[in-house]
């Protein structure tokens, strides 16, 4: 085929982002679940990373809103719905198989809501997302298509890691993944990076010290990574 429209390019990119957001959110919630055993309101730190205040009654109330509430843009349910929305219009690019894992992830989440202990069933949700990525590697022959999804994924990961103040080691890994994916994007396409902003990020994550100082600058630069370079008159 080898013909990607602007609309499909956009869906591919956001499919990568939302699938990754679902995955990282799931991972973080796992940790919070664990802390919940020992302490109450153990999620406030997580909320503050997104500038949110604690308006929740207790741990369970928080979980309800961050796992299942489809109207909360920070919830797992929301990210999964958006991943599915972007995926459903890409069937012929990403395969029915890949799509089936997003469907299953949605179904698994829904089922877990009725469980006594949702954590157990969330393990299979993680499997569903691994399955999805397996299909992306297995079924997408076109490297250009695959790479747009991967760019979305690695960009989302770095973005979330920066926001959640992950350790430098993880940031470094996420950064080098992203640059690897960005380098493979052809010039004159919408996902070609703007080198000015990539340089800024690179500078900010050069060392652990710099990262401590400049992580918010890195985050800002990341938002502009696909801006068209200014043309000097």
């Amino acid at each position, binding site marked *: *085929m*080898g*013909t*990607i*429209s*602007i*609309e*499909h*390019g956009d869906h591919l990119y956001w499919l990568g982002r939302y699938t990754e957001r679902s995955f990282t959110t799931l991972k973080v919630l796992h940790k919070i679940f664990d802390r919940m055993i020992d302490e109450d309101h153990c999620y406030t730190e997580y909320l503050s990373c997104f500038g949110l205040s604690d308006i929740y009654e207790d741990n369970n109330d928080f979980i309800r809103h961050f796992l299942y509430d489809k109207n909360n843009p920070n919830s797992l349910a929301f990210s999964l719905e958006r991943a599915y929305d972007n995926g*459903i*219009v890409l*069937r*012929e690019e990403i*395969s*029915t198989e890949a*799509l*089936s894992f997003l*469907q*299953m992830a949605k*179904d698994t989440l829904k089922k877990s809501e009725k469980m006594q202990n949702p954590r157990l069933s969330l393990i299979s949700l993680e499997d569903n997302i691994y399955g999805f990525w397996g299909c992306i590697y297995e079924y997408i022959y076109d490297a250009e298509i695959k790479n747009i999804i991967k760019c979305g994924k690695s960009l989302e990961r770095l973005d979330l890691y920066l926001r959640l103040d992950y350790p430098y080691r993880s940031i470094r890994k996420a950064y080098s993944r992203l640059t690897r994916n960005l380098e493979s994007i*052809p010039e*004159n*396409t*919408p996902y070609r990076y703007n080198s000015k902003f990539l340089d800024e990020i690179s500078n900010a994550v050069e060392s652990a010290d710099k990262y401590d100082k400049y992580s918010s600058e890195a985050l800002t630069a990341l938002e502009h990574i696909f801006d068209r370079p200014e043309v000097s008159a």
Partner: protein
Amino acid sequence: MSGIKVEQFTQAVGNADEINELLRRYGVKFGIYKNGVFKEQFFPFDPIPRVINAEDFKSIEKGLVQRVDALNRFLFDIYHEKNIVKDGIVPEDFIYISSGYLAQCEGISPAKGIYSHISGIDLVQGKDGEWYILEDNLRIPSGASYPLIARELTRIACPDVFAENNVTDNRNYADLLKETMENVNCGGIRAILTPGRYNAAYFEHSYLAEHTGSVLVQNDELFVEDNILYHRTYSGGKTRIGVLYRRIADEYLDPLTFLPESLIGIPNLMEAYRAGNVAIINAPGNGVADDKGIYYFVPKMIEYYLGEKPILKNAPTYLPFYEEDRKYVLENIGKLVIKDVAEAGGYGVVFGSDLSDEKLEEFRQTIIAEPRRFIAQEVIDFLDLPILEGGETVMRKADLRAFVLSGKETKVWASGLTRFSRNPDSFVVNSSQGGGFKDTWVLSR
């Protein structure tokens, strides 16, 4: 059931839920609007197949090929010489009053003269074993993807049943479709045009795109330049499209030729088409041949164009347009089924037996006032098919949509969509009105 016992099948399947679970996993859905809100519904699948034995299928196949060939000849004739009208076989009125006739298509010769590339012919089997044609769908018949994916999944769920029975493999549909598209390709890639995710048949559009290796497109990704249809790429380039399998209605296809208010069409697509630079599947204007009023004339077309006797029967049909028929319809309205020719999708179908005397009289007056608007048919006593409901087998009305593909030759897909009604009293089997589907097995011997 041709030597296959229902019990054998239901035991092997164990529970229909398993297969429905698989169908759910693969997202086999259709869209529906309820109170103005779009919802995706899973299309309920009944695991007991409709079984057609090899001999029966051979005759159905011959009959369908004959019918579709005649319909294609008719369409070419209507948009060119109109001999069938000149020779008095079909009254002129029936052509030009039909909303499916598009004057804008006059004189266009589609690639290789094919108008209906994919025909969905609805049949029912009577209690007497005889098959009757209920209607022809030559515009954008949908439904082939459902039995296609259901077969894939039932073979996983109950391999033994397939090992023991000689069921013709139906998983060649995408290849047949691809061949049909390639046969008329005017040079370029294959594309399937969908109105978007919120269309009832979106699952099918995307599934067929995936399996035929076509690009699934919406109108804003396309443009016509120098009478050539292009796909606009994200890098600012363009890729030529040689064949467009469109799943939007004729009237919306090109706002510069048809409805100016269409927001889902491609401006100047008809110019590219007329210039022979792109094939459109199915051809615009086909509605004139699957009009409920034209249905009456199809057996006559077969004799006229092919010089053959029709192999498959129409349901006995009356046209109130003819005085003699009108008299019969008015006298027997209570036992007939009346169809409004302008309606589709199971709407506009009225059973005389459901109406009060008062309503019947009202209906008679409507028919007298607008005889061209209706056709009347004898109610066929269809053969009921077993379906599973809560572990029990119950009998329900079902029809069969057979798919006929006109490429280098005309081929009938050895399967089809069997739809059944959930409601025990209903004769209307349409997915948009509830109900589910079955796989259709054609035995190879």
